[in-house]
């Protein structure tokens, strides 16, 4: 890749502003509330954009492009089913308890509603997950920087060994994220997430526009993609049965697994996103935050899924020699295309076995495609130097804000839920502020360690993500029962959570997607059931975990003593007075906004059906 000084200038400008915001906010960080909760003073629109931006890490940007190239428009289910309904639900029904209970974190809410041990379980697992997730994000970024040769030119100019690029990328991102969070806490993270939100649009919108123009608009895209696989241009067609849609899932697994369990589990209980809503200035704003976030979330499929679809609809480049004559001299111009590109499909390269140098094949003999390169290759394909710098900056920004969200969630949960609760109670606020700052440093150091561990242990990423899914899958049942059934007890919540996680593990150990070998993909106990795809296995695993948690929690609740109702005011739906209506017009209420969002989502789904 040829980067010129303009590209570097744009990248540098972004870093200057990111750090500048951190320094500008430093003087406002007086109490731990300022640092961990942004003083609970931010406007709803900022929190709303940060709410989706916290999730818009690179896994999302690269992953959705990859999924678009692999499965087509069906990927949009992750938005229409997997995100929007859950975002409306958390805004309308759950935010009153999160915000109104004055809890400072999601684990703290669990202590208020249930008991100490449920909080400890959730806080510990959450703290571990955030650190590892931010490490995974870091590792993925360094790998992508290597693959795209972003810093190669810089390293050559400076005379440094190219082996140092991995370390350089990791240290650079770690130092920047560390500095701006250390200085400005959650406010800084939220501000930078908003900045990154607009950067992603600035970087990806021209990409989609150029790509669409190239293939001949929406109609041209339809024709080109249908030539590859006619099922890929439909979001809903063939969804009734697993064998008739590209993802290999059927409607129940999709609706229950993705929509009800996984989507809600993420958007309604993950402190990573909830923290941004809890930072807003009043209850009304807090409830509006997820709803505001849902509006851009509806249009994001255009920005992140389409690059993947466009990448496979373009012709696959081949090495070609053109002969032309100029002033009596014959020129042979050979345009050499790397082997992995020639073996790929469109702009998606094939995966090359580093030992043999040949393309790796799937069980059915087709080349295995490296879908993660779909979106980055689109950037390189269409962007001339200048705007290319902007596109790369957007990509880097998405990696860093993914890390930052995890780090702020970690320092809050560590300081309030672990340090203040179990290690050092009753210290001054100033002390906790300092601890929070150093927890940031600690969290980032642990993330770096994770990123390096990932180099030596090939499977660590997949293993970690698998373990996270075991822990996360049952969570939503606990919150649902806790907030809407006053009889639920602490012992029940704790037992339910643990048995839900065990159920998820057991399910994974007993099932296997077809075309996979027992091991990391499942079936490590014995195989009793084959799923048509790993997606189906994942969704059904979540359904089992959720149901187990739900049933066990209900049963144990009936056998244990509930807390007196007076203690549960503000924590359970039936015992909490309705929030006062402070807005003057009915259409300004969160409920009206929620209905509008849902209608919009339905309309989009019909359009893509």
């Amino acid at each position, binding site marked *: 890749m040829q980067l010129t000084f*303009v590209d570097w200038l*744009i990248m540098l*400008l972004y870093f200057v502003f990111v750090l500048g915001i951190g320094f500008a906010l430093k003087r406002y960080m007086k109490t731990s509330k300022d640092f961990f909760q942004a003083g609970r003073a931010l406007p709803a629109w900022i929190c709303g954009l940060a709410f989706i931006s916290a999730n818009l890490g690179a896994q999302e940007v690269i992953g959705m492009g990859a999924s678009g190239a692999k499965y087509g428009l069906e990927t949009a289910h992750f938005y229409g089913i997997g995100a929007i309904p859950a975002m409306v639900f958390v805004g309308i029904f759950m935010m009153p308890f999160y915000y109104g209970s004055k809890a400072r974190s999601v684990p703290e809410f669990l202590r208020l509603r249930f008991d100490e041990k449920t909080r400890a379980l959730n806080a510990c697992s959450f703290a571990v997950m955030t650190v590892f997730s931010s490490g995974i994000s870091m590792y993925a970024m360094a790998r992508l920087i290597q693959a795209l040769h972003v810093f190669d030119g810089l390293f050559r100019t400076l005379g440094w060994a190219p082996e140092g690029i991995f370390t350089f990328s990791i240290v650079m991102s770690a130092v920047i994220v560390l500095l701006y969070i250390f200085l400005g806490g959650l406010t800084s993270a939220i501000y930078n997430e908003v*900045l990154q939100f607009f950067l992603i649009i*600035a970087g990806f919108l021209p990409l989609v526009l*150029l790509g669409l123009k190239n293939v001949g608009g929406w109609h041209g895209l339809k024709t080109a993609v249908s030539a590859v696989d006619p099922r890929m241009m439909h979001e809903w067609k063939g969804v009734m049965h697993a064998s008739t849609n590209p993802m290999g899932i059927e409607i129940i697994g999709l609706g229950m697994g993705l929509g009800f369990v996984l989507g809600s589990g993420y958007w309604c209980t993950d402190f990573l996103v909830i923290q941004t809503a809890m930072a807003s200035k009043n209850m009304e704003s807090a409830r509006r935050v997820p709803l505001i976030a849902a509006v851009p979330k509806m249009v994001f499929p255009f920005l992140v899924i389409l690059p993947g679809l466009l990448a496979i609809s373009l012709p696959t480049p081949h090495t070609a020699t053109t002969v032309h004559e100029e002033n009596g001299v014959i020129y042979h111009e050979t345009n050499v295309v790397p082997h992995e590109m020639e073996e790929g499909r469109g702009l998606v390269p094939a995966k090359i076995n580093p030992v043999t140098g040949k393309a790796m094949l799937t069980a059915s003999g087709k080349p295995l495609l490296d879908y993660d390169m779909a979106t980055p290759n689109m950037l390189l394909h269409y*962007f*001339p130097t200048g*705007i290319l710098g*902007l596109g790369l900056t957007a990509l880097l920004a998405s990696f860093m804000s993914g890390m930052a969200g995890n780090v702020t969630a970690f320092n809050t949960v560590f300081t309030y839920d672990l340090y203040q609760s179990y290690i050092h109670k009753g210290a001054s606020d100033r002390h906790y502020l300092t601890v929070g700052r150093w927890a940031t440093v600690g969290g980032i150091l642990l993330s770096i360690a994770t990123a390096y561990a990932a180099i030596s242990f090939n499977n660590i990423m997949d293993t970690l993500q698998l373990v996270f899914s075991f822990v996360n899958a049952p969570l939503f049942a606990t919150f649902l029962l806790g907030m809407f059934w006053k009889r639920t007890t602490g012992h029940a919540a704790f037992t339910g959570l643990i048995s839900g996680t065990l159920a998820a593990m057991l399910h994974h150990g007993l099932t296997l997607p077809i075309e996979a070998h027992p091991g990391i993909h499942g079936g490590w106990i014995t195989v009793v059931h084959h799923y048509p795809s790993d997606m189906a296995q994942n969704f059904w695993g979540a359904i089992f975990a959720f149901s187990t948690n739900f049933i066990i929690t209900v049963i144990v609740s009936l056998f244990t003593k509930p807390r007196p109702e007076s203690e549960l005011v503000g924590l359970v739906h039936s015992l909490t007075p309705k929030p006062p209506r402070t807005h003057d017009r009915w259409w300004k209420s969160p409920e009206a906004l929620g209905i509008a969002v849902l209608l919009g989502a339905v309309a989009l789904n019909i359009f893509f059906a």
Partner: protein
Amino acid sequence: MNLDLRIPMGLMFTFTGAILTTWGIKTNGDAIYARSLGINANLWWGIVLLLFGLAMYILGQRSQRRLVKEPAPPAKDGEVRRGH
């Protein structure tokens, strides 16, 4: 919060837009635009970002000025609101 995000954000996009626009004018008609289908992507997108940045900046400045004029809200932590 006393720092309106739209001010730094507006500035950043204004600068980015200005850089891209200038670069686009300088390289207009260059061979580098073959990859962007002959469209001067730097120039056009630079102008879009420039306008977006300026709009954000002006909006931010306005609300900041309004905040300075208004009497400070009952200060919780004894801070004086000040412009940026």
